């Protein structure tokens, strides 16, 4: 009998007399401790899995630089697409009548790299046939939206600077943004 007295004492941490006189309090507080225990268990397990998921996201990426210079505005003739920077930086430099802008080479459908077809004057994606005009506007195939434009500006030395960390989407009206093109 004395055993019965001490065991709940230890587990609930209340005074010996109390628990002995009111056994239902013991049960109730035991249940509440159980709840706390389970809550703690779920919390810790959840936290553990959250940390595991966070583990999948690297902090440091070993990818090429996102900002690069592409030369002077005069280097680009008007109404032409420069494909020099496609290979290294994944960007086309396009000059139309009044501006120069940098288009992303990532097809907005599934991320293939379209090809510039000068004769038909369009970008054509080999994967699923999306077509984009020189401006980057989509007009055929499954692409849901135009190509993205990168931030473009003039550096201090007069060269054009393309910053890939900022991109501008047509469907959000961001091509109006003066950072998305360079007036010439």
């Amino acid at each position: 009998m004395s055993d019965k007295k001490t065991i709940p004492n230890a587990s609930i941490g209340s005074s010996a007399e109390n628990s002995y006189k009111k056994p239902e309090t013991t049960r109730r507080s035991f249940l509440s401790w159980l709840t706390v225990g389970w809550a703690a268990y779920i919390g810790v397990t959840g936290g553990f899995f959250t940390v595991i998921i966070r583990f999948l996201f690297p902090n440091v990426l070993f990818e090429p630089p996102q900002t690069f210079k592409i030369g002077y505005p005069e280097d680009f003739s008007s109404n032409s697409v420069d494909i020099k920077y496609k290979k290294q930086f994944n960007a086309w430099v396009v000059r139309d009548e009044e501006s120069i802008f940098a288009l992303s080479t990532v097809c907005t459908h599934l991320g293939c790299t379209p090809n510039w077809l000068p004769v038909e004057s369009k970008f054509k994606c080999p994967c699923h046939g999306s077509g984009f005009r020189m401006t980057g506007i989509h007009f055929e195939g499954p692409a849901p939206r135009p190509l993205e434009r990168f931030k473009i500006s003039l550096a201090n030395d007069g060269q054009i600077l393309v910053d890939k960390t900022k991109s501008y989407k047509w469907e959000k009206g961001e091509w109006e943004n003066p950072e998305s093109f360079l007036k010439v």
Partner: protein
Amino acid sequence: MLDAFKNSVDYLSNPTISFSLLTVLTPLLFPPTDWFDKINRKLRLHLLWTKTGCAISMAVITFFFAVGFLDENFSVILTKADNFPIILMFYSIFFCTWLAMHKAYINDERLEKGLKPSEYNDPDDKVLVWPDLVYIEFIALILFTVFLVVWSILVAAPLEEPANPASTPNPSKAPWYFLGLQEMLVYYDPWIAGILLPIFCVVGLMAIPYMDINKKGDGYYSFKERRVGIFIFMYGWIVLWLFLIVLGTFFRGPNWNFYGPFEYWDAHKVVALNNINLSEYFWVKLLGTGLPDNILLREFVGFIVVGIYLFITPVLLAKTVLKDMVKSYGLVRFGALMTFGLVMLSLPIKMYFRWIFDLKYFVAIPEYFFNI
């Protein structure tokens, strides 16, 4: 003569035609109702499941590939090492489907006469696994190993140029078993074709035993007792999965344009793909006004169409044609069946809307990547 054959194959393999043909052919080959069964008998299509039917079909497939190997354009596709499994797929899937249907027809006749299915044996008359089964497994294992070794010696595994993130090969194809998915991507946006439909496909397959409440046909080949179930499965499996794989492998060339199997892959083939959204049809073409600025207003027709399709159709069907089915199935099971069925059917429906009306999206909200 051969040219005429090639030209007609090229013509027939155009997705609009070949897909329609298969869609019409499937219910005739696997007739789900008496009406289809009658036509099946009238056209003598059931003879396909006889031994002669098998021999003739195998000969036709072989003839097709033989002509293909000799053709300068088709042989380029056929002799690609990674495409050999597709040729195997043609033979093995046809033969296995034939075998199952052949046995099913024999069993159907036996069952009609009141006999047990041909698989039936006296339950007390069992055989020992050693040696009866173990030896069969051993032989199958050896034969398959020999097959693999011979295949590996004859055909080198493909290796193209080193990876180059800057230039995408034209055309750029997924592994053959995913070409069905890649083909769906032409019609639906990635979040539907790449995520939603595959999930529905897997979950739908898993749900088959819970949706098929027909207790007959368990443990032996049969067709008549389960014809609706087999028809639905075969339509999804052959037309919406296997055919799309064949389409993606054989009939898709540069720029993902359609090319007949015997056609030269001209990378400069110009195909107009000017697709129009439903909202543009409604506001611009029908009402003659511009697109409204409010997204919900702009796309309301599309929302109504999709809503009617997904939510009103099942209710209508439950109240009319499928009244008895609701009773025997119960609401939950019926709802599940309708959901999976309608999602599965949404693929051919979208394909036809694309082909006939150049429809791009029912609902087009690229601002939130929400296109249907």
